[in-house]
C-alpha cells in the first residue's frame, strides 16, 4: 500500500489549524469543556442524559457541515482520498475506537487541548501515538512492502 504524493500546503494547513484552535477556545468559553472528538463521540454512544446527547449531536452535525460549507463557498469539495483497503479501514477504525477510550483522548483532546493546557498526561499520550502511528506507517509501506 504505497502512498502517492500530496501537495505541501503550509498556508491552508496553518489557517485550518488556527480554526481548529478557535473552535477549542470557543467551546471552553461557552461550555467550559475540552474540544475532544473522543469525548464528544463516546458521550453520544454511551449516552448520559437526553439534554447532554443533544448538544453533542448538534456539534457532530456542525462538524459534518464543515466540508459542505467549504464546498458551498469555493465550489469544490475538499479532497478525501482513502489510500487503504476496506479491511484496513474497518480494522483501523475499531482499533482507534478502543485505543482512544483507554487513552482518554485523541489528536484533538490530547494533541491540541491537553498540550495547550501543558498537561503532562497529554504530552505523554501525544508523543506515544505519534510514534506508534509513524512506526505503523513505516512497517506497512516499507517493511511489508506496500
Amino acid at each position, binding site marked *: 500500500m*504505497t*502512498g*502517492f504524493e*500530496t*501537495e*505541501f500546503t*503550509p498556508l*491552508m*494547513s*496553518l*489557517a*485550518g*489549524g488556527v*480554526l*481548529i*484552535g478557535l*473552535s*477549542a477556545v*470557543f467551546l471552553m468559553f461557552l*461550555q467550559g*469543556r*475540552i474540544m475532544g472528538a473522543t469525548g464528544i*463521540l463516546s458521550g453520544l*454512544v454511551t449516552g448520559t442524559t437526553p439534554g447532554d446527547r443533544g448538544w453533542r449531536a*448538534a*456539534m457532530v452535525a*456542525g*462538524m*459534518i*457541515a*464543515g*466540508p459542505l*460549507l467549504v464546498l458551498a463557498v469555493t465550489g469544490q469539495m*475538499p*479532497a478525501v482520498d*482513502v489510500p*487503504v483497503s476496506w479491511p*484496513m*479501514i474497518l480494522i*483501523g477504525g*475499531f*482499533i482507534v*475506537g*478502543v*485505543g482512544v*477510550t*483507554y*487513552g*482518554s483522548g*485523541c489528536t*484533538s483532546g*490530547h494533541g491540541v487541548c491537553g498540550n*495547550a493546557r501543558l498537561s*503532562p*498526561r497529554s504530552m505523554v*499520550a501525544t508523543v*506515544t*501515538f505519534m510514534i506508534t*502511528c*509513524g512506526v505503523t506507517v513505516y512497517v506497512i509501506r516499507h517493511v511489508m512492502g506496500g
Partner: protein
Amino acid sequence: MRLMSAFLVGLVFGVGIAISGMINPAKVLNFFDITGTWDPSLIFVMGGALVTTFVGYRFVLRRDKPMIEERFQLPTARDIDARLIGGAAVFGIGWGIAGFCPGAAVPALGSGKVEVAGFVAALLAGLWVARLIQAKQADRRAVA
C-alpha cells in the same frame, strides 16, 4: 442557545479540519511517511491549532465560569499509567493503519464517501466495546 452554539463550534472545527488537509487520509499518512512520500503540512495544522488554543485558553480560563455552564469541566486525571500509554499506543497503530483520527473522520463524513462511513462505524463499535469492557471491570471491582 446551547444547541446552536454547539453546532457553530462544530462548524468552525469542521471547516478547519477540511481546509487544513487533516480531512484527507492520503495527506495524513504522508505526514508520517518521512522516508517515502513525505508531506510536512500537518506540522502547520498542529502548530496553528496549538498556539491558538494555548493563547485563547489563557484568556478564557481567567474567567470565573463559562458562558452557558456553571463551571469549567477540566480533566482531573493526573496519573501517567499503563492504561494511558497503552491506549495512546493502540490509537496510533489504528491511525497508521486507516489514516483517520476521530476528529478528522467526523467532518470527512460530509464528503459522502462510503469509506468514511465504514471507518466511523468501526470507530463507534470500538468505542462501544471498550466502554462495555471498562464498565464490566468497574462492576467487578465494586462487587469485590
